[in-house]
């Protein structure tokens, strides 16, 4: 007789899971040195009435270390993963809790960060310090921005609507927008045809705002300087819009039919800081952009 050992449970990488009102992207580590045939995701909705969450759904035969799961909006879920080999399934992993209330949630991918960027412990604030980092001293990963002091978020690759906000100070010089996953890491956000961004810089006389894509921008002037910018992405209508959330004011909308999924991008033009807020439901006025 031949006895196969059951696999060990996988380990869910909670920090890189992402969600939006209708879906979640769960990623995990194998948790095994021996090969695993497939993975099974199990989930159940957390309900206030029951202290134990029953697993009501199972997705089997997942070949890779991640899965996008369709969910209902406005709920909370407990999600587990099991590894499966010829001997059978492992115990359940530790769960991750996913909320489909309140908007799209994503994290900043520190692998893409320009070396001059420092990220806060909670992972949502980026700092560009005064000390210039000598790039020659560092082995840059292929995935990191090397010129634009930028970082990319990891948005769940699902069509539909996504919304997030960016908090800055009045004089922060930034570029915020979206880019394709493979946007040139040695390029500047908005300077190529794989990225779109709102750019704010200070000139000696005034605030200057640009909406850059492929290096060009319309000529736009605004009188109130946003400290909190709402960014709305709608794959169905092909729109990327920017708002001054303190005033509920629409600033600009790109109309572009994205050929691939895009990720949020953030860059600082000079020393300063910027904070990303997500997991927020898009305010009502956004539907009228």
């Amino acid at each position, binding site marked *: 007789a031949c006895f196969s050992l059951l696999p060990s449970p996988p380990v869910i990488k909670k920090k890189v899971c992402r969600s939006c009102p209708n879906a979640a992207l769960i990623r995990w580590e194998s948790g095994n040195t021996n090969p695993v045939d497939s993975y099974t995701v199990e989930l159940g909705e957390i309900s206030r009435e029951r202290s134990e969450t029953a697993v009501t759904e199972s997705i089997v035969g997942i070949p890779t270390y991640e899965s996008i799961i369709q969910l209902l909006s406005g709920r909370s879920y407990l999600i587990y993963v099991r590894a499966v080999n010829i001997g059978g399934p492992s115990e359940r992993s530790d769960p991750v809790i996913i909320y489909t209330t309140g908007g799209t949630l994503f994290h900043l991918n520190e692998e893409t960060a320009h070396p001059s960027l420092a990220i806060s412990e909670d992972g949502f604030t980026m700092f560009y310090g005064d000390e210039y980092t000598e790039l020659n001293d560092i082995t840059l990963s292929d995935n990191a921005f090397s010129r634009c002091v930028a970082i990319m978020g990891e948005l769940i690759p699902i069509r539909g609507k996504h919304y997030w906000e960016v908090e800055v100070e009045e004089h922060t010089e930034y570029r915020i927008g979206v880019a394709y996953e493979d946007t040139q890491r040695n390029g500047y956000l908005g300077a190529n045809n794989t990225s779109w961004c709102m750019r704010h810089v200070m000139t000696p006389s005034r605030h200057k705002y640009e909406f850059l894509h492929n290096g060009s921008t*319309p*000529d*736009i*002037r*605004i*009188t*109130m300087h946003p400290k909190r910018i709402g960014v709305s992405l709608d794959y169905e209508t092909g729109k990327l819009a920017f708002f*001054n959330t303190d*005033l*509920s*004011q*629409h*600033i*600009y909308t790109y109309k572009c039919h994205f050929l691939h999924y895009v990720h949020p991008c953030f860059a600082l033009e000079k020393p300063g800081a910027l904070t990303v807020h997500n997991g927020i439901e898009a305010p009502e006025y956004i539907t009228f952009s």
Partner: protein
Amino acid sequence: MALTLVSSNKCFDGFQKVFEHDSTELKCKMRFGIYLPPKAEGGKCPVLYWLSGLTCTEQNFITKAGSQQEAAEHGIIIVSPDTSPRGCNIEGEDESWDFGTGAGFYVNATEDQWKVNYRMYSYITEELPHLINSNFPADSERMSISGHSMGGHGALICALKNPGKYKSVSAFAPICNPMQCPWGQKAFSGYLGSDKSKWESYDATVLVSAYSGPQLDILIDQGRDDQFLAAGQLLPDNFIAACTEKKIPVVFRLQQVCILILSLVFV
């Protein structure tokens, strides 16, 4: 108040109509265009008042702007009044294209010759909305105003002088600071006399500095190659500076498209 139907055309499943009535403010017969979207058959709709520019009648916007499709889609009534009283037999009313007939400048005139008939400000802000609300399925709580050139000036001053009355205000190539440009100086001295303190209450740039009321959100589109911009008739920079100072939200878009002031191609 009796409305006479002048014309009615089916348009994107709604109706583009033109009516005529005896205006009590202007003491003459006045025409206005009104687009009723399909939704108006089932209930009240918000109303956009569109003010046209120099030399226009109620027809220019209806025939050139192509707004009916959007209005139908979004369920908006669009009212497009004429730009001045007509046939009043005032000496000099037809002498120039930028003063008198077709050039009411949306003020209430105080000079003797003009003060009886040239009351476009009251017509637009009072008589016309009462007429529309009484005769059409208009949601009186949701009115917005927009316009082109002289009409852009009209939209801005109506919104600034009536805080909270309009849900939104926008303008295409507006005359932003009439006190400082040839058109405005000619019109204001003719309608309001030489005392410039009387001109201030019809100048958007001056009104902004004194504005207090609910938050405005102003959108202005301006053609980069507009000859009247170059000629110093429009002066958007003055308006933007005043709004920046007073912290009034404005988005100003300078467009590559050349906006010919007398043609509504861009619209």
